[in-house]
Structures are given as C-alpha cells and as structure tokens.
C-alpha cells in the first residue's frame, strides 16, 4: 500500500499536494506463481504536511500489479476529495516563487539534521526532493522491497535554468525488508504545472535484480516521463 502514494505523488507532480498513506480500509491480494501478484486496495490518505488542517482528506482505490517480482509496479489509482486543482496550482506557484528566491549556492548538508529538524526555510526543498524521490521509490518497489526517504544527505546543485528549477541532490533511501540505506543521486527539473523530469542513479547493495530498471519493469512507461 505504501508504494501507491509514491506513484500518486509522482504523477500529480505537485510538491504542495503530497499525500501519505493513512489507513488501509480493504485489501485483497491475488498471487499467480507464473504471472505475478495483484493487489486491490481501498485506503485513505493524509496530507503530507501535518500543519494543513484536514485529516484523512483523500479516499483512494487502487490496483497494483507486480509482474514476476519485478520492480516498478503497474498502478491504477483514483482518489476522491483531494485538494482542489486551482488551490493546488496556486500553492505550487507560491512554492515556486519562494524557491526561486533562495540564495544559491545553498549552504546545506543534511535535511533533516540528526535531530530530525528541518528549518522552515528549507521545507520547500524537502518537499521537492520528496517528490523526485517518490518517482525513484516507485520504480524500485517490488512486492518484497519497499522504501522510505530517510534524509537528503547533500544538495549538489540548485539553480533555475530558464525558469525551471534544476535540483541535483543525493538522498538516502531506507529499504525496509533488508534495512539497507541506499544513496541515490537525483537530478530533477520542475516547473509548476509541467510534468516532473527525473534522472537518477542509486547505489545498489543487493545483486541487481534481472529486470530492475526501465523496459522490463512491471509497468509500461507512463507517457509523461521525460528523462534528460
């Protein structure tokens, strides 16, 4: 269930409308040894940033398919009662304006710091990084491996090229079943309203699965994905 918000967040492409899993209401899994594993779920989501009032705002239903234990599950998800599109676009634009005003180079190492603290001025960076990491985490998720974003370990580059925010950072992902910490170098480009562009390279600590990666993942590549 946790992989759905990753996929959903990526597809929505909006740092101000990030969601997290709240509760699973119904679930059913069907395993076909030859083909793969399909999971049908109904769940609620909370707004990622707890300061934003409403609880359990969104209700979603989803179908997730893992083809033969391969990563990048195919996901079909629909949600109701989320932030209204106009409001979301407005908030995204405010966020974007704020980010453009950040002084570069950003003198920042870890976000959050060792004590779990994120300076309010750096929160937008975290949100944007989380958005990019959502894509990476979705691509790497299998029925046995699932990920959380533990920390931004370094901000390598933060600039705006012709209005797009160009963000190059290293993130530490925590894979739960192996307990490994996976460093990933992510390079993303964001402009409010436009699809997110993501390019990344992760340090693999297990022997690479045969089909982890692009074409042979379980999902057909979504059309809005642009690598640069």
């Amino acid at each position: 269930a946790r992989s759905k918000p990753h996929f959903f967040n990526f597809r929505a492409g909006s740092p101000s409308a990030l969601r997290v899993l709240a509760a699973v209401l119904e679930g059913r899994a069907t395993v076909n040894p030859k083909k793969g594993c399909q999971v049908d779920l109904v769940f609620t989501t909370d707004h990622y940033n707890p300061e934003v009032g409403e609880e359990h705002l969104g209700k979603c239903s989803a179908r997730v398919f893992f083809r033969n234990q391969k990563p990048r599950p195919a996901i079909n998800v629909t949600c109701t009662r989320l932030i209204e599109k106009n409001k979301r676009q407005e908030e995204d634009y405010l966020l974007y304006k704020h980010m453009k005003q950040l002084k570069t180079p950003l003198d920042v190492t870890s976000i959050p710091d060792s004590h779990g603290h994120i300076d309010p001025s750096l929160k937008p960076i975290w949100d944007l990084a989380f958005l990019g990491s959502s894509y990476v985490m979705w691509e790497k998720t299998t029925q046995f491996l699932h990920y959380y974003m533990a920390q931004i370990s370094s901000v390598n580059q933060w600039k705006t090229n012709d209005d797009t925010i160009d963000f190059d950072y290293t993130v530490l992902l925590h894979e739960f079943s192996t307990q490994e910490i996976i460093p990933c170098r992510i390079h993303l480009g964001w402009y409010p309203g436009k699809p997110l562009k993501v390019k990344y390279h992760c340090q693999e600590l297990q022997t690479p699965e045969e089909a982890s990666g692009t074409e042979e993942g379980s999902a057909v590549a979504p059309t809005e994905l642009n690598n640069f």
Partner: protein
Amino acid sequence: MPGAPGGGPGPGPSPVDRWTLVVFSFIMATALGQMNFTGDQVLRVLAKNEKQLSVLRDLDGLKPQKVDFWRSPAKPSLPVDMRVPFSELKDIKAYLESHGLAYSIMIKDIQVLLDKEREAMAKSRRLERSTSSFSYSSYHTLEEIYNWMDNFVTEYSDIVSKIQIGHSFENRSILVLKFSTGGSQRRAIWIDTGIHSREWITHATGIWTAKKIVSDYGKDRTLTNILNAMDIFMEIVTNPDGFAFTHSMNRLWRKNKSTRPGMFCIGVDLNRNWKSGFGGNGSNNNPCSETYRGPSPQSEPEVAAIVNFITTHGNVKALISIHSYSQMLMYPYGHSLEPVPNQEELYQLAKDAVKALYEVHGIEYIYGSISATLYVASGITVDWAYDSGIKYAFTFELRDTGRYGFLLPASQIVPTAQETWLALRTIMEHTLQHPY
C-alpha cells in the same frame, strides 16, 4: 597540512622564537590528538564497475598518501568513502571527474563538524550537574547519557544502582540501571533500548522512562506494586560504539563496530547475533549487509554481555527490546511462522498494551508475532529470550511509520515516551500478576 593552533603571544618574539613556538604547539596538538582537519572533506564515490573500482584503488597506493579511505573500495555495488585533505581536494576531484566517477560530498569540512560537536558537548557538560537540568526532550551524546546516569544513580540511590555488564568492541562500558526496592535476586523485568544505534528515539524513551519509574514510585499504585515485588533492569545504550558513530560520522549506522581480519566491512547486526534460530532467513552472512549476523551466535561482546547477565541472574521473567520505527508491538517468533505455546496470551496482552498506548495520544500500533507482522528475522533478541524460558518477551517498534523514520524530531520524544510507558506498564503488570 595540519595547521598549528595556538600561535605566539603577540608582537615581540623574534622570528626564530615564533617558529619554535609554532612547531612546539604543533607537536603538542598532535600529541594531544587534536589534529586539525580544516577544509578536509569526506567524499562518497559511486563506482559503476570493476574498472572504476581499480581507479579508486590506485589512489590508495599513492605515496605520499593523498586520501584516507573510511570505506575501502570493495565491490562496485558498495559506496567508497574517503577523507581528502584540503590540499589534495582539487587534484582528487579532477582525478575522479576525468575517470567519470560520480561522487558526492558527505562532509564539507570535517573540522567544522568536529568543532561543533566539541562545542555542543562542552556546553552540555557545563549545564548538566543534576538530572533536573538535563533535557528529556532532546537527543544526547553517549557522554551526556553516561554522565546523566551517574547523576541519576546518585540522586535516586535508594532505588537505582548502576551495573557494568561488559565492554563493547571498542572497549566502551556497557551499563545497566537496576531499579530495586530490596529483596534478593527478585523476579525481574529486562528492558533494552538502542541495540540499533540509529534508532535514537529508543534511547531517549529509555531515559525518560527511567525518570518516570523513580518519579512514580510511591505515587502510581500499579508501578509501586510492581517495584515492591520485582526488579527492573534497563540497558539504555545497548550498542555504545554504534551510538557514538551515529554522532560522529554516520547518523544512519545500525550495527556495532566490530571488525575481523580480512573483512572489508565493519559491524554486526546485534539483533541477528542471538542463539535462537541463528543463521536462518532474515539474516545475512555478508559482512557488508545491514543484517549481517556475525560469524557465530553471541560472537559480539554486546550480545554476550546480556546473555551472561540474564543467564547468571536466572530470574528474569519478562524481556522487552525496544526499536524504531514502524509503530508495532510484537512477540516471538521472528525466525519462523510457528506460533509460540502461549501465543493467545501474548496476543491479548499486546492488544491491551496497544490500547493503553493509543489512549495517550491516539497513535495506532499494530501487533502480532514478529514474523507475521514485520518480517522473518533470525537470531533475534526476543526469540532467544523466549527459548531461554522468558515467557513474556516483546519487542516494540516506536514512532513513526516512515515520514521521519529514524530521524524523528526531538519534539516527539516526550509524547512517544509517555505513550510507550503505558504499554510497558501493562506488560509489567501482567508479568507481576502471572508468576511462573
């Protein structure tokens, strides 16, 4: 390249005298271990293949030495960490770039980090003269915690004493607090926190809980009844070497710091090193893995110390091992799906404990056996405890469920400890009322 601190005493001395002073200071500083790392960086390099890896190994062979590997080139799938002195940075980075090696700067200036840490520690050392000025809503260093323990034991010496049960791999003391109102070798409850060093919320919860126990004795009826009949042992820093490392170099370090000749990687997962189900699924025999079980059961001094203590004591009736994160309360087994004989009782007790926890701040925990709730894991603490005859063996995974994970904000320490206390008390009360 180490700069010599402590310059001359101002205008006056001749150039020869000043130079002597500088050299003398340098010698003294080096002798006192105060090397200067200003501008030195730690780079993490991602090698994509063997060829790139050998490019890195070539750096190691350079004389004079230009880099200092903290994590040596081992396999292409493993990151390589190296400290690069300030004077070599430009050359080394150019070298990496020319060979197409991607790197990131893990530490921008080692000296800054060391200075900050030293400053923070000195600051809190000045403040912490009693446990009432110790901040229970902050995270602390190993030294601060050990210092707090001494104050704590002094202040509450009628109930609390400190026992050293062994030494860690890097020779740090392994300490246990004993809460007792008398008697001799009474039935006891064992609680440990921090077996995985990056789980900082657990040590913080342990500290708060220790204070809660002494504060509530004589005031809270349940706790008073428990302590009047039983002893409580609490090991707060179960992995002191790992914990020190999370402060100095790697906040996300999990294992201990043991090494063996010929091994590229450091550390054993202390929660895979116990004798029950050792070597099974859910543990790894790759030393570089986060769940490396170690060469043999109890090979690690941190684990052996607990085994010896509990076995020798002979009267421990409940064992609670505290981890983070996931918000779960679980009982054995981890190594298999086979239910334990008193599974029904443990299920009900977990259910009650979780309900008590929920009532404090509305935080939801799930519960069940480890293998069914979390994942299959072999050689774990609670399986060993159960197989050694400790019927009430539980493990907690504290807050949260992944939003902050291991980096739980300090503002959540007290709420987490408050709710966890209710669950702990439920388990302890049940143990009291069901002697065996």
